[in-house]
């Protein structure tokens, strides 16, 4: 366990070096914009992705992360995916998705590795349902540029049965993006983008 852990996070400078490189790559790719939209179809395999894009859906692919996977293997499968994109795979975004046993830093570093390894993929998305708004927003500092998941128009107060809900409002989504230093844009019907006023 210790060697895997050490590989994932050491030396100390790596966290900030990788994070800032990924953030710079993301800012450059999106011109400092951050995006959000309501839940959308996310493929969990390449065949599913190909079928989805063939039907005109946006090409989004979920990339799972388990606590046991060594960093070298993460980087290996990301490099393989990058090759497939270069060879013509239609992929508009990836959704790094940690399993329950993944910790916060491992998740953030995986987001950063996705951004750095997949230069040909326009977007790295945060699934708020899986990461929650807190870790999700941090991921925006590590190369992610888009929020997806339970984003609602209005949400009841966090009382009673609704306490602990992970749903956030459109305004809150925009605030998370702006708080991470991005200009917020909402994905609207027909594939358009509208800037969300700060």
């Amino acid at each position, binding site marked *: *366990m*210790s060697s895997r*852990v*050490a590989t*994932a*996070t*050491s030396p*100390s*400078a790596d*966290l*900030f070096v990788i*994070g*800032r490189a990924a*953030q710079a790559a993301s800012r450059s790719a999106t011109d400092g914009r951050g995006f959000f939209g309501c839940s959308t179809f996310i493929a969990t395999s390449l065949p599913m992705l190909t079928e989805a894009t063939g039907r005109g859906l946006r090409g989004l692919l979920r990339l799972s992360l388990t*606590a046991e996977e060594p960093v070298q293997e993460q980087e290996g499968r990301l490099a393989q995916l990058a090759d497939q994109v270069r060879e013509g795979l239609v992929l508009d975004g990836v959704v790094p998705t940690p399993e*329950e*046993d993944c*910790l*916060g*830093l*491992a*998740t*953030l570093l995986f987001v950063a590795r996705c951004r750095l390894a997949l230069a040909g993929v326009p977007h790295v998305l945060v699934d708020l349902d899986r990461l*929650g*708004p*807190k*870790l999700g*927003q*941090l991921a925006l*500092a590590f190369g992610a540029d888009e929020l997806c998941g339970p984003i609602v128009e209005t949400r009841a*107060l*966090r*009382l*009673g049965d609704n*306490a*602990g809900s992970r749903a956030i409002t459109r305004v*809150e989504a925009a*605030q*998370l993006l702006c*708080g*991470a*230093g991005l200009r917020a844009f909402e994905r609207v019907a027909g594939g358009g983008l509208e800037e969300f006023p700060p």
Partner: protein
Amino acid sequence: MTLASISERVSAGIPLSFDDGVALFREPDLLKLGALANQMREQRHGDRTTFNRNLHINPSNLCVASCPLCSFSRRNPEQPGAYTLSLSQVWDKLQARLDAGDCVTEVHVVGGLNDSLPFDYYVELLAGLKSIQPTLHIKAFSAVEIFHFHKLFQLEVREVLQRLVAAGLGSLPGGGAEIFAPRVRQRICPNKCNAEQWLQVHRTAHQLGLRSNCTMLYGTIETIEERVEHLLRLRTLQEETGGFQAFIPLTFHPDNNALSHLPAPTAVDDLRVCAVSRLVLHNIPHIKAYWISLGIKTAQTAQWFGADDLDGTVQEEKIYHLAGSDAPQSLTPAEIVHLIRAAGRTPVERDTLYNVVAQGEALPTCASPAGGQR
């Protein structure tokens, strides 16, 4: 005020100014800020992150203060959820842990401002805990509670503390500081003691030889300037007494309280406060990432943003969970060790006064992390 010029002052060991603190809070690059805070953290503590084995006990949630920020308190005994533990119930909580084989080194006792319990209840509570486990360190009663005892029982703060020390009190927790600015205090906790009174309780405790912690509750209605002012007032008292051991940034949780209309602070806020605190509070040894408040994943990340302590095993926490915290109720020592190691840090078990209890191979290990982490 640039981050580069602030960095030079940090490297030269020059205390940061009010303007520096404001500039740090406004620094847009979270990772630059984190790297600077991490530099100071590693200069002081290397790659060590400490934790302890503790038990939280909240003897009563009856509280005359009824603060809008609080989800824990109940004003009347008839209200649903209102409770007051008997002394036996309090002591049983510790005994149960010991019977289960847990090597608890600290009990953390805080509760509501109950105006129906006699002072002897608190004295006997401490004495009883101490008699169960004489080596136990009892960290009990926030400055707000001590001030409440002073007013309710017509005793000088010094005498309140002396009597509690005689019964077994070992140190004071840091709660109740909230935000010192009167404008904010009037809105979020109008019936608590004011900033001067909170600071005076800690000053008195330090003069009596007690150590204590200090806190700041952020994310309600305070401004950046009010946060910095709060930190500087803590730093000033620390210059005077040197009695603070750790600063604990407490993130506001908006569930089930009168401030539910406010959004919860974001994780960027959480890490920013942690980092700025490390940099501004140069004379307070430790910055604690209280995982109950931050959530496990943010707390783990905070070890790279200035924090060098993760608090403890806790076991049963009510105050933050009633406000919506989705962190687990407790972590085992092995789970905390895993959290620290998985962040590339070196875990060290400490006691309340930051003496080393165990490190290296003496620490427990587990193969998988705690469940339900967010």
